[in-house]
């Protein structure tokens, strides 16, 4: 496929992760807790309620985001783990149902690629 396609990072929810293993995706999610032992991974809840473990970047500093809602960009390791490449704060209020509906719409064959960019 074209090089452009390798750079895409579409938004997904937890259910879709198995289809995107090995690829880069964006997960809009809510922070649940930190895995305090390693301080490198933390749990989040995706827009459809599924729980995912995010492995943070090892910068030597603990990862402490300011916001409850985040958009994590990362590579899918398996159906419940994402290895984080970047993170965007989304504030403390987000309508997750709306997000989920939008994510589903994005992947709808009618729209994917045509209406919603990657």
């Amino acid at each position, binding site marked *: 496929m074209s090089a452009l396609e390798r750079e895409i990072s579409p938004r997904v929810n937890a259910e879709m992760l198995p289809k995107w293993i090995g690829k880069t995706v964006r997960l809009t999610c809510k922070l649940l807790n930190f895995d305090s032992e390693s301080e490198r991974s933390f749990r989040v809840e995706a827009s459809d309620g599924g729980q995912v473990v995010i492995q943070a970047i090892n910068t030597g500093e603990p990862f402490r985001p300011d916001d409850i809602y985040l958009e994590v960009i990362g590579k899918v390791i398996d159906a419940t783990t994402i290895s984080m490449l970047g993170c965007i704060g989304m504030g403390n209020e987000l*309508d997750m149902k*709306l997000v989920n*509906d*939008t994510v589903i*719409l994005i992947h709808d064959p009618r*729209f994917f690629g045509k209406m919603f960019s990657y």
Partner: protein
Amino acid sequence: MAFQLSTGSCEKLQTAPQNDTSVYEAPHTLQFLSVKKVHGATASGTPNQPPPDRYRIILSDGVHFIQAMLATQLNHLILDGQLQRNYVPCRLIIVLDLKVLGSMEKLGEPIQFGASEESTSGGADRQGSLPGAGPTPAPVASSSTPAAKPAVPSRAPGATQRSRTSVYPIEGLSPYQNNWTIKARVTQKSEMKHWSNQRGEGKLFNVTFMDDSGEIRGTAFNMVADDLYPQLQEGKVYYVSKARVNLAKKKFSNLTNDYELGLEKGTEIEEYNFVPLSGLEQIAKDGMCDVIGVVKEVSSLSSITSKATQKEIPKRELTLVDKSGFSVRLTLWGKQAEGYDAEENVIIAFKGVRVGDFGGRSLSMVSTSSMQINPDIQECYDLRGWYDSQGAQTSFHAHSNMNAATSFGFRHEELRSLDDVKQAGYGMPDRPEYFSTRATIMHIKSDNLSYPACPGPNCQKKVTEQGDSWRCEKCDKSYPAPEHRYIMSMSVADHSGQAWVQGFNDVGTMVFGMTANELLEIKERDEGQFNLVLHKAICSTYNLSCRAKQDTFNEQTRIRYGISRIYPINYREEANYLKDLLYSPWSR
């Protein structure tokens, strides 16, 4: 001496099927809560005899109460003074006469709880079905009451404190009940017929009333006919009560009912025309209608000074909601407003309220309107059931910007792009005036941002400076300082085009985030900051509810767009709306 009432009796008596004689034969211990004499209607089959007096009693088993009629054979017990209020008869219900328990009332509303033994009989509002037991242990259907009484499914009338009793099925009408109301449609109305014979002359007309249970004929004579003929119309539904129930003259009618209604002077016919709130938009402004809904909110009492009479009129606003998912404001005036104190979430039926177009659609009581709280009719029960299960959570649409000739609200469905508006020629004669759009402010004309206005209550007239004070012509008063109000000309644009619009005070307040007084102050103080404020205001997007109007000056006719309402964008709402659109059939 205390007696033990047989609790559950009332319930059993009402719910037992017709041929379950065991219920009827068993003794029940009940208390008579009230005994009332009811004048019987003509009993057919016994002509030339005065109709017997009948007694209606209310029985309580401590848990429920029900109504019953006393068999005429037992009338003597009353007369002898044996059965009086609160008397607990030992020998029981075998004593009661029977109207066969027909269908339970459709709703199955819980029967009101009777009070304890010293109870009052107030509030006997719900219909009870009459309990049955023949004077002999014979099965109910063939009770040995005089042959003249047919076994007819019927319901006892509710307490008649209200103007409307419970609604009967037409099948339940009989000469023995004279306190009934039916709700039926006029399926046929005859012409006014005149006759003359040796006995004299007169005129009459007939109607056929129909409801779910059956049909019945009604006849009105002479003067009554004159009154009712225009009032009753084919196809419409009416509540009829207090007509005389007579034996049908089969010669004149081919309906199956044994009875017919004689419509008389005292007969009440009420038109029923409850409109679901969503349908209010179909009714023209200033039209009258009836509505029924749950009162979701009650505002506190406020008052308005009538400009015409300079009098203070108290008013109160209610917010009504109903199954259609819409809400509407209804205004009560005067005494009704003051006297209103029903609790929340009551259901009120309004008759004859005027439809206005304030804020989309609004309702207002007029002198001829009437209201009934928690009326005893089908729609009320439906609403109660709906409200208790889902209504309380639903969020309601208030009526807003409807097609053409109305109002102020913002309607997503009718969002127009600016180019659309121009092409369609909004504002020209014969074109709709109001539209909704979403646009971004590009430029604000800064030379004429505001005008000095009268600070008096409710007055926005321009005041003129006279020396040290400002005078308002309308209020005839002078003020030391005016209250500045915005009046601004802005250029707005969207993806399709651009337009100049005019906005007033509310627009300015939202766009600038401060009052006109404050803005002017900044302007005088610090020009730089003033420019900054202006600068910040542009490039922001709003939902606008606008009105287009044609203006002519100096031979030039232009269409001016004025902003009626301005709303900031709620991304969540907008996104939801877009999402709905994508899920809708439109997107397939």
